[in-house]
């Protein structure tokens, strides 16, 4: 799902995002993206996706992350998305297999920028 090539495309799109350039000054945090047994770590610095770690080890801490099955992620990325899968907050409320793990307080402190990042992410179709 989250291949290196896809991560690169997401990084390019997010770092070119005009809105994130406006709202991202305080968006410095690391988060994970997990799909089944795959896990990636994304390091954001002041709204830019500075680093993606494809095989994170003990030395890649992150505050929070989103975890779901490949089927749930595929439905998130579908265009147009089906109802309940069209937004991360929708999935957190209505899709039991979509999980926000880690420090949810930190995630919600970054709600605006995090939400924007996930909206941009949804436009980058996985292979």
């Amino acid at each position, binding site marked *: 799902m989250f291949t290196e090539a896809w991560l690169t495309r997401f990084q390019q799109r997010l770092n070119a995002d005009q809105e994130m350039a406006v709202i991202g000054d305080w968006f410095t945090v690391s988060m994970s993206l997990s799909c089944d047994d795959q896990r990636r770590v994304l390091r954001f610095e002041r709204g830019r996706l500075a680093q993606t770690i494809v095989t994170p080890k003990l030395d890649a801490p992150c505050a929070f992350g989103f975890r779901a099955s490949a089927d749930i992620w595929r439905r998130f990325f579908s265009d147009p998305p089906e109802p309940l899968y069209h*937004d991360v907050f*929708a999935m957190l*409320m*209505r899709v039991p297999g979509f999980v926000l793990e880690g420090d949810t307080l930190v995630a919600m*402190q970054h*709600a*605006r920028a995090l939400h924007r990042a996930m909206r941009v992410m949804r436009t980058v179709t996985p292979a």
Partner: protein
Amino acid sequence: MTLEPIVGRYLRLSVGAADYRIYFEEAGQGIPLLCLHTAGADSRQYRHLMTDEAITAHFRVIAFDLPFHGRSNPPDRWWLEKYRLTTSSYVAFIRAVWHTLGLDRPVVVGCSMGGAVALKLAVDYQHEMRGIVGLESSAHAPGRYNEFLHHPAIHGGELAASYTYGLCAPQSPESSARENWWYYSQAGPGVYAGDVHFYSIDWDGRDAIKAIDTNVCKVSLLTGEYDYSCTPDMTRQVAAAIPGARMVIMKGIGHFPMIENYQLFRQYLLRELEYMRTPSS
């Protein structure tokens, strides 16, 4: 220059022992159409409806800001009590506005928590109403409340706005969804959480709504297919409990039809308002 036909005024009224200064807007002439905004928002959400001549030619459209919302002040000594909207306080306040403005057999349009309390009004005061148009109406909507909605380490305006932004359908015009985002970012601390207390904790009308007689008070239910707060199934349950209720699931619309995509929504709304104008058989 374009001068919109909406007129805004302030209304002084009392509910219980408290005095209020309430902001309301109106436009048009005819059957009173009382519009109730969503949790943590205000009457600006109805601005498109209030400038739609197809509606204002037949209806006196009125939208007010609840206390603590928009330009309506909280009551005196508000800082000594945690804001928590309840079913009884919400109904009492709507009734106070209704009576003070002298609205004769209005149609009530309410969205989300407004759509929920519209059902309660139809239960308790059906003989004094023409009908309700419930937008995103549910009889019971647990799951929306969380403590982070009012937390010192979180920007409440940005969280509430982001939390509700995804309630819009992905097909809705971006500028309209962002307009609603802006409204949500402007609520006072704890106001959205206090409203959600009504919507998601206090409100349970599942048994009571069975008492609504649609021969007395018409019921139209419009819910967006992308609404994940009041899902289409939740509105179907309401419709199933009220014989004679009309229900439409609106394609390509989310939780805020009157503000997120008015041009699409009005096609659904005009049909129901025509139904409300038709004399009961």
